């Protein structure tokens, strides 16, 4: 289902102080695709995600989203452009209610118009969030919090959804149901970027995959064409 590129990253370098986190990274993501970014801890996956989300500014290179330059724009503006982040560790706002967590997802002007409609959609997707609407989100289970974090991101009516380690610490059955719903969303045309530790699941779920090693893209290709062994070799730098 690949079509026109929605995101185009061209030769970016990102530093944390003196530490060179991303080296000359380029990648292109097509609209409607599910793209997996695979790599070991510290390979630069999260850095890449947060750079796309606008939280890191590349030292050089460009990022184009739907034809516009977005590098260095700042996170509160990139969400307005249609990039939503589901952060690692869920990071729901613990003292706010579930309902308020969803509302704040629609903070940007572009999302405010359809707030009720979107809430309904998310409640259809994850009915538990309706049931627990008036509870403080700290009282939710891990899986419920993950659903809330995804729901919150979807409230901004994104074109591109960045999911960072969404299966971390969750029971397999919960992971399965969350992935099922992601597929549903994907079928409606949303582009999704996943960061996953689990190589097998990544390849099965994604249309396209990138393997990162020490801040560089070590391997890329269509998920169906990449063999698991080949990916694992790239993963460990062998």
């Amino acid at each position: 289902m690949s079509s026109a590129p929605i995101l185009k990253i061209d030769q970016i370098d990102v530093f944390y102080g003196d530490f060179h986190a991303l080296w000359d990274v380029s990648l292109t993501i097509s609209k409607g695709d599910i793209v997996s970014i695979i790599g070991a801890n510290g390979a630069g996956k999260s850095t890449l995600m947060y750079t796309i989300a606008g939280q890191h500014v590349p030292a050089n290179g460009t990022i184009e989203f739907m034809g516009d330059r977005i590098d260095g724009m700042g996170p509160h503006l990139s969400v307005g452009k249609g990039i939503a982040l589901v952060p690692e560790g869920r990071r729901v706002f613990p003292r706010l209610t579930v309902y308020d967590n969803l509302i704040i997802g629609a903070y940007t002007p572009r999302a405010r118009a359809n707030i009720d409609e979107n809430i309904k959609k998310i409640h259809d997707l994850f009915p538990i969030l309706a049931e627990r609407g008036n509870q403080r989100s700290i009282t939710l289970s891990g899986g419920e919090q993950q659903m809330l974090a995804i729901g919150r991101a979807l409230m901004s009516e994104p074109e591109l959804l960045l999911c960072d380690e969404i299966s971390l610490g969750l029971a397999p059955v919960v992971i399965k149901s969350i992935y099922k719903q992601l597929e549903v969303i994907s079928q409606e045309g949303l582009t999704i970027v996943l960061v996953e530790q689990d190589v097998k699941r990544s390849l099965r779920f994604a249309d396209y995959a990138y393997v990162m090693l020490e801040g560089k893209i070590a391997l890329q290709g269509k998920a169906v064409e990449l063999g698991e062994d080949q990916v694992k070799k790239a993963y460990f730098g062998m």
Partner: protein
Amino acid sequence: MIREPFKYRWLVLGALFILLATLPVWGSDYMLLLGLLFCLYAALSQMWNLLTGYSGLLSLGQQAFIGFGGYTMAVTTSYYNINIWLSILAGGVTSVLLALFMSLFIFRMSGIFFAIGTWIFAEILMLWFSNWEYVKYGTGLFVKPPNPPSMTMIYYAALTMGVAALATVYLILRSKIGLGLMAMRDNEAVSSSMGVEIFRSKLFCFLVAAFITGTTAGVLYVFQIFIQPYKAFAIDWTVSLVFIVIIGGIGTIEGPIVGSLIFVLLSQYLSEYGHISLLLLGIIAIIIILVAPKGIMGTLQEKTGFELLSPRRLFSEEPG
């Protein structure tokens, strides 16, 4: 399960308001004094709570606005014979200008550095005012308005500030900015990725707090009649506000109200015990913190879910 918000909350709030609004009719002069102090402290502490409890701005420099607002009022009304109520408003406006100027420097800092920055500003103002011939140096100024208001009028001014502060905080928290603030308080980075404009939200609250604090200080010094820089710009003010908000419950709307009530009544009682009064105040604060670590209202909310004024929006199953 979380409880539904207190059903009769508007009834209770309305009754409280009517009680306070008719106080000059049914209460003694002394009750009027207590009511006046209560409203003033409630307004001031509500603002400190907005900054520290909701916006994550730990301010130790509220006395900068208290002194600045008070002096603006004193100077405009005593030197230029400007109507007392306009002078009080002028104090709010100059406090906003001061806050804007301060923000150029301290909004680059965060956390404890911000706190110290606000404090340093207040100290600088104290030095400036105590060395400024125009305001008679450290001697202090008498507030001499062209038409001195009666105690009842001052009380209503204080009540207006108390209600205005409460309404402002409530409306801000129920607004989009407020939701952003509460998200920001929980996690600044994530809230920013939701599109919350951290800097602008914080600045907005800082300016609002400056306006209400400066205006309230004007009313306060109309009551006091005498303003002197060493006390007007003293950290004591913020210490009192911290006491009020902490025992009442930081990050709750009702906390500053309950805290102010306790603070005003306690300090009235305790002033009879001379030098041990401050010690007793400290001991009581410690006891309350030990019994109710989140302050009285904060702990009550946690234990029973009771909230009189909730910043929460309520979700109800949509029809159909």
